[in-house]
């Protein structure tokens, strides 16, 4: 962006379509605008509520206690899972990140329709901003998780940190693809907003959060590989690798190995990289579909 105040005939500028600068790449070129939108979204998400930002923590924490009580205390499923609360909370952080990105992202274009119909800007900006806001909320939750892990004898390791980054990238890209697709579709039929609610119910049970991966491996045997085709499950397992595994002592791990139970799938990082690549392809496709639908968005709002 030039700062010149003089207005000479700018013949050096090319003639081009005024709506050319769109797409995800343009979003990251206009960082100042993105920053403003993210900041606005953070303050607007819980506008008019007394507890405000605290809701971002109350929400996952209450879920945590419900699951912990029902699955752990009532069903006694946590007996086989050492440090079950950490296992549960780690999964919950990622699930919450995905659900927030997907849900709020889907509504983002409708919520900003005042801007969408009158201002020329990359409309991908709104789903991206909601994704970043959700990511912003992940930060403090990870800090709480880390503190809990440290108290349980966890020491950070390199593979764990790589897993952490991979897990976040997978969720960010798949969440953003969903947000892009559904935010545009939601303009045409509000039904898509409701479909999101249905989908998010599956997410909680499709990832090793309330049950350990060892159980999947035991029940499904070689079909467990199909389970790993779900990028969300991969991300959660990577996250468990980053935090939960470190809190399980070597003796306990040896005990599991002796019983023939597999805590983590083989070649986990490889699975993670493949999942991320897959998610990026899906993101590319979502962008293409979004650009198609985008053309009709202003007239349908």
């Amino acid at each position, binding site marked *: 962006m030039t700062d010149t105040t003089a207005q000479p005939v700018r013949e050096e*500028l090319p*003639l081009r*379509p*005024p709506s050319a600068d769109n797409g995800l790449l343009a979003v990251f070129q206009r960082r100042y605008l993105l920053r403003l939108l993210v900041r606005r979204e953070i303050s*607007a998400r819980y506008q008019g509520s007394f507890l405000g930002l605290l809701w971002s923590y109350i929400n996952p924490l209450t879920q945590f206690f419900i699951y912990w009580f029902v699955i752990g205390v009532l069903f006694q499923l946590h007996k086989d899972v050492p440090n079950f609360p950490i296992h549960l909370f780690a999964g919950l952080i990622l699930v919450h990140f995905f659900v927030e990105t997907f849900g709020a992202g889907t509504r983002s274009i409708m919520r900003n329709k005042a801007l969408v119909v009158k*201002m*020329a800007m990359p409309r991908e900006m709104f789903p991206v901003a909601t994704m970043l806001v959700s990511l912003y909320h992940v930060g403090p939750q990870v800090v709480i998780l880390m503190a809990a892990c440290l108290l349980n004898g966890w020491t950070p390791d390199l593979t764990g940190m790589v897993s952490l980054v991979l897990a976040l990238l997978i969720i960010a890209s798949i969440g953003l693809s969903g947000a892009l697709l559904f935010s545009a579709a939601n303009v045409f039929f509000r039904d898509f907003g409701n479909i999101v609610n249905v989908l998010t119910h599956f997410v909680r049970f499709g990832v090793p959060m309330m049950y350990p991966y060892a159980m999947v491996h035991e029940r499904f045997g070689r079909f467990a590989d199909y389970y790993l085709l779900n990028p969300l499950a991969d991300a959660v397992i990577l996250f468990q690798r980053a935090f939960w595994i470190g809190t399980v002592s070597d003796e306990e791990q040896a005990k599991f190995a002796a019983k023939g139970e597999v805590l983590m799938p083989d070649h986990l990082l490889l699975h993670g990289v493949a999942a991320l690549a897959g998610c990026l392809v899906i993101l590319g496709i979502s962008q293409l579909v979004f650009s198609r639908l985008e053309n009709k968005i*202003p*007239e349908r709002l």
Partner: protein
Amino acid sequence: MASSIVVDNVTKEFTLRYHRTFKEVTVAKAKGHKTSEKFNAVEDVSFKVEQGESIGLMGLNGSGKSTLLKMINGVMRPDQGSLLTRGRIAGLIATGAGFHPQLSGRENLVLNAAILGMSERELKRKYDDIVEFAELGRTLEAPVGHYSSGQRARLGFAVAIHVDSDIFLADEVLAVGDKPFRVKCVAKMKEIRASGRTLVYVSHSAGSVKRMCDRVLILEKGRLGFDGDPDEAIRYLHYDSADEQEIDDEIGNDI
């Protein structure tokens, strides 16, 4: 001279939907009624604007002026034909910029400036000028949802006019402002004209178009009906009849 806006056989099609829910659509289909209808809001329009020209865009309500402006601005893309522009574009569409009703005037000002492409530094430099031009006083801290249409237009115009744009779009800005503000706007737009920037001005007021523009385009049901000299354009539109002048005076469109 370089061309600033090149519009080539542009068509924009809108779909009118009469029924929205599954139930309504099924019932209408069963009865053999139409559920949707397509029409061209802008149809096969071609023209070329040179850098520094002031163009007046006229036509009745619903003739496609705002749609055309939205395409020039980049909010919409043409369905057929091509539309090219040179340089940065700023301006107002349909009497105002896009504002968030819950945000304060100040927050909207910053957001709007960023959307129009100002950098943080540029905005910091111009911020006081914009606030001063808008003359909103303490209202600037109130949510824009509570603004009157005149106040919205003030804020929108103040931001847009301070962007270093190569093309400035002004859609009926003068229709809602009070007289002192309109005088200020006209002075600013004349400044734009004098600085060699391209101006596209939409108005129903024959007098102000005559004063502001050196060429007028008239849209009729989406088609380009006239392209040429402002005086002839006003005769073409029959806006020059005696009672027109009277109406202009009565409603205060005298600038």
